[in-house]
């Protein structure tokens, strides 16, 4: 498969060229346009029970589409996300894994498994859903995962402690410990507008987005009728 990520970071879009016989799985609704001879099959993502869990609590879509090229020539497919923002790809090798916030997953290829994992009540209170998505590498070799965000994506290494506003976290290494707390004491949090923050500790990688839907909603709410 050949792919091209264009229009980063504002309207990152995945332009894919599927080779004959190749398959690519993407979340439902991700297709913007495609060559007329490609076909696709809709399935529950991760099996019915996982799919329901994800939908009810994780905010992920219930369905995924697997696109297939049945012709003898490469065909193009354009994939996008409901968010407007950046798209990154991660190569996941056997034994590696990464966690996504709800809504971040776009597409994958190459035998990676996607599971819904319990995220804890605090995560739910913080508005991040009861479940998070854990992507695990294939039994051997490596797979590719595409995820998107609202805003530009910045990759950061955590070594020790970092305080992150929950709305800006997109993806993170599963071994990082999270502690959800108020930003500055009760009154401080309300008046400062910072609300709940996440204190990350340990060693690992995180991906941040430079905007958050929550931030946009907070910004617009006082201006509405």
């Amino acid at each position, binding site marked *: 498969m050949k792919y091209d990520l*264009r*229009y980063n970071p*504002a*309207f990152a*879009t995945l*332009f894919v060229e599927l080779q004959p016989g190749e398959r690519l799985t993407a*979340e*439902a*609704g991700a*297709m*913007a*346009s*495609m*060559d*007329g*001879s*490609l*076909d*696709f*099959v*809709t399935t529950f993502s991760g099996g019915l029970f996982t799919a329901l869990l994800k939908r009810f609590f994780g905010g992920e*879509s*219930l*369905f995924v*589409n697997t696109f297939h090229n049945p012709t003898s020539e490469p065909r193009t497919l*354009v994939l*996008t*996300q*409901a*968010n*407007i923002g950046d798209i990154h790809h991660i190569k996941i090798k056997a034994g590696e894994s990464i966690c996504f916030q709800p809504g971040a997953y776009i597409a994958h290829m190459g035998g990676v498994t996607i599971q819904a994992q319990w995220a804890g009540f605090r995560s739910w209170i913080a508005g991040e859903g009861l479940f998070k998505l854990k992507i695990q590498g294939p039994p051997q070799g490596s797979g590719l995962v595409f995820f998107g965000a609202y805003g530009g994506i910045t990759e950061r290494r955590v070594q020790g402690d970092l305080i992150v506003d929950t709305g800006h976290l997109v993806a993170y290494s599963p071994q990082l410990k999270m502690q959800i707390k108020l930003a500055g004491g009760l009154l401080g949090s309300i008046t400062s507008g910072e609300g709940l923050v996440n204190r990350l500790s340990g060693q690992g990688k995180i991906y941040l987005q430079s905007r958050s*839907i*929550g931030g*946009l*909603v907070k910004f*617009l*709410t006082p201006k*509405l*009728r």
Partner: protein
Amino acid sequence: MEFDLLKRPDSTVVHVSLSPHEEILAEAGAMVAMSGHLQAETTLRKGKGGGILGGLKRMLAGESIFLSTFRSGNSPGDLYLAPKLMGDVCHVGIGSTGSALGGSGSGLVVQSTGYLASTPGVVVDLGFQGLKSFFSGESIFWLDISGDGVVFLSSFGAIYEIEVDGSYVVDTGHIVAFEKTLTFTVTKAGGSWLNAILGGEGLVMRFQGHGKLYCQTHNAGAFGQLVGSQLPAREA
């Protein structure tokens, strides 16, 4: 008249430089800034055809558009035009201007929110026969662009061009404009209705033949739903 597209692809504005006695037509509300002496006039353009009842029907169906004309008068002037949503703008030549710019010059069918501005020689007609707007919940209608000049299209997201040679499928929320040389059908994506409803791809337009397609990378309805559903409730 000269123009320049700035801040592409996410917050594109068109910077237009008018010579004396020139004018440009734009969707109302598109003016960002302009030289102090430019004259502006806004009118309501309604769909044609069918007599008074036809006009009324189109108005009720949402087929009406406010257009502003900007005139330079005796001295040159400049202005900035911007679309309503985050996204890109591209220019397409129509008629002999189109061929001169290296394109086909073919007339275009443009989704109503995709029209930003055009030079005076371009004819903007509301409503395109043979394509009803059945995109549920969206009051989208189509503009028939013909004549001679340049039309500026705007998109939600970036604009990408597809040169159709055979068949090509586009999700209905991602179409900005297409050349009239293409034939199309509105259909469900994939092989089954179940796929269409559950797969989230919904309705798509399948284009056949030869011609250019202008698509946008993002779906305004999907983004509107993502953000709007989290905003406080409004009065019915």
